[in-house]
């Protein structure tokens, strides 16, 4: 069994496709972390001002944009025509006319509009306060913001947007990873059947071992790739010291890894068994349709879980082996799931897998030598016929 696993590792690990996809994954992840912060930092607003503008407008504008970490450049134009020409020539993003009208070139920018509106409002308030005779202290009191506190009624949620994002990212990654790596197992099985290597292998060892070796080997390769990408991500975040990326608690990471491994094992064994009944890749896609359906179910389950994190159905779905990996991962990200639940769910998975591997082995060995279209499962699940 290990020989088979080692072969998979060697063949796939050294292939160009693998190295390319790993490099691509690393690049993508690094870009996803780095680029957004870069884009935001370099935002500079160019505002043209013309007409009657109260004193302090520019300062107020600068205060607004500065609060949002943007830079501001203002240009004063003597005439409306000059200002409008500047807008058309893209010298400025917007023209503020008489402190009450904004002129854009093609489309209004809501962020800038809001900033300018706030600035104008602030200037107006100050002007009115002066006119009414309020002192600076009274004005400050007037403008004290009201603080609203937030409290969630549900069970211990880290119910901030960060956790949700982490949850969805983890789930998304899991989908992609499980589909790809289990997919490799599928194509490998079908290819070995088509090239009749399967016959030569089966003559030497039982089908279960071939299956296990394949699943383990590809899993190892896949896990390594993920580890490399994850390490690159972690490194990038550490180096940049960026607070833009959501923080991932260590235990969430650990559980995600566990569920990924379990989910991959389950799906790859199912893929392998069904793939063995076909002789061509095209047929294989049709054969695994039920499994694809299960994955879709998992996706829907996560969406449901987001809406109803405490519903009984959600808890149930986190035990049901095909949907457990994704639902559990999501729950772990947004909730503190009790350890006993995790352990139980994992145990259920393991038992399911043990049974599945035996069944898969029988289907695999029975179907591997039967060609010509798809072998009906009924014939294979029953013990060998006379």
């Amino acid at each position, binding site marked *: 069994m290990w020989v088979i696993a080692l072969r998979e590792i060697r063949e796939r690990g050294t292939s160009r496709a693998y190295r390319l996809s790993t490099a691509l994954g690393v690049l993508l992840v690094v870009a996803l972390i780095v680029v957004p912060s870069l884009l935001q930092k370099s935002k500079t607003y160019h505002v043209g001002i013309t007409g009657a503008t109260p004193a302090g407008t520019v300062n107020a504008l600068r205060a607004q944009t500065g609060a949002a970490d943007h830079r501001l450049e203002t240009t004063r134009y003597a005439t409306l025509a000059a200002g409008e020409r500047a807008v058309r020539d893209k010298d400025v993003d917007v023209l503020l006319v008489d402190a009450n009208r904004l002129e854009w070139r093609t489309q209004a920018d809501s962020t800038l509009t809001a900033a300018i509106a706030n600035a104008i409002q602030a200037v107006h308030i100050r002007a009115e306060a002066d006119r009414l005779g309020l002192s600076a202290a009274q004005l400050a009191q007037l403008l004290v913001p009201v603080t609203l506190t937030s409290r969630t009624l549900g069970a211990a949620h880290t119910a901030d947007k960060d956790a949700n994002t982490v949850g969805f990212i983890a789930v998304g990654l899991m989908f992609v990873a499980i589909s790809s790596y289990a997919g490799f197992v599928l194509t490998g099985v079908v290819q070995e059947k088509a090239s*009749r290597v399967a*016959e030569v292998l089966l003559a030497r060892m039982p089908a279960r071992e071939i299956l296990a070796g394949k699943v383990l080997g590809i899993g190892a390769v896949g896990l390594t790739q993920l580890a490399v990408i994850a390490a690159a991500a972690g490194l990038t975040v550490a180096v940049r010291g960026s607070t833009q990326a959501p923080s991932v608690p260590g235990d969430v990471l650990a559980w995600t890894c566990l569920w990924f491994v379990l989910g991959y094992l389950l799906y790859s064994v199912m893929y392998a068994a069904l793939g063995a009944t076909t002789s061509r890749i095209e047929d294989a896609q049709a054969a695994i349709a039920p499994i694809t359906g299960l994955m879709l179910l998992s996706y829907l389950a996560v969406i449901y879980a987001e809406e109803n994190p405490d519903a009984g159905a959600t808890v149930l779905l986190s035990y049901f082996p095909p949907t457990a990996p994704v639902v559990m991962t999501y729950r772990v990200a947004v909730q503190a799931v009790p350890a006993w639940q995790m352990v139980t769910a994992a145990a259920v998975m393991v038992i399911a897998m043990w049974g599945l591997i035996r069944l898969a082995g029988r289907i695999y060995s029975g179907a591997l030598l039967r060609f010509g279209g798809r072998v009906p499962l009924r014939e294979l699940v029953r013990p060998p016929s006379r």
Partner: protein
Amino acid sequence: MFVVLELSEVSKRYGEVAALVDCTFEVRPGRLTGFVGPNGAGKTTAMRTVFGLVTPGSGSVRWQGHAVAPADRRRFGYMPEERGLYPRMQVAEQLVHLGRLSGLSAAAARRAADRWLGALGLGDRKTAKLDDLSHGNQQRVQLAAALVHSPELLVLDEPFSGLDPIAMDAMSELLTNLARDGAAVLFSSHQLDVVEHLCEDVVVIDQGHVVLAGQLDTIRAAASDRYLDVTVTRSSERLLHVPGSTVVAHDGGRVRLRIPRDADPVRLLAGVDGEVVRLTYEPPTLSALFRAAVSQQAPVGHEEVSGATR
């Protein structure tokens, strides 16, 4: 000389189709056993039962007296009809991989792979990918894959298919040497003359039934006919009318007659016109035996499918 591989009353059905029916034969070490039969007769199925690729519905496959165990299969070599190798993997690596699967250590597998590739004339193509080799070379690699662990039993499904005469000679010599070194060799082929030439034992199968099995010489001698091949210098007219004989072929001065086993050839040739240039007296060839055995099967086959016993 003891029996090493024994199939005993092996039967296998696939749904309505009877692939093997009470199939019984033996393979002995140090000898070549030829496995012949029409297409679809069950040769491949029978071979697969030896390796556990097919589980018989009834009957047993025994090796050295006991039921075949997975450990025994490590001592078997199998060359299936189809290629059975990874197309895009290096040739030497594949042999090492398969050798290790059969229980060899990595180092031993590597040595064996080198040895066999060298023996088969592929020493310089070790790092080539299988797809890049010619058909004949691919077949050699396939053979090496079956031999890399020096098996005690070698089973080959149509090893001579698609080979040119030179390659066929090389294959024949190799198989003969393997048998001489003590291995039990079973191979199937459609080329009856090759089987006749190489094999001491033969098994003829048709529609899942074994119709002939045993030592080729014995089977031939037990046949009720003999063939007399006579070439005369002058007219062979007389030969065409020898009583008690059937003319099988006639070409100028050469005549081939089929006569009963106990007929005296010398007496039959008395009074032949002219000088006898060439004379051959022999039992039926495997080809003739095969045709006779297989044609007898046809009516029986239908009964079998409906479940009636012979």
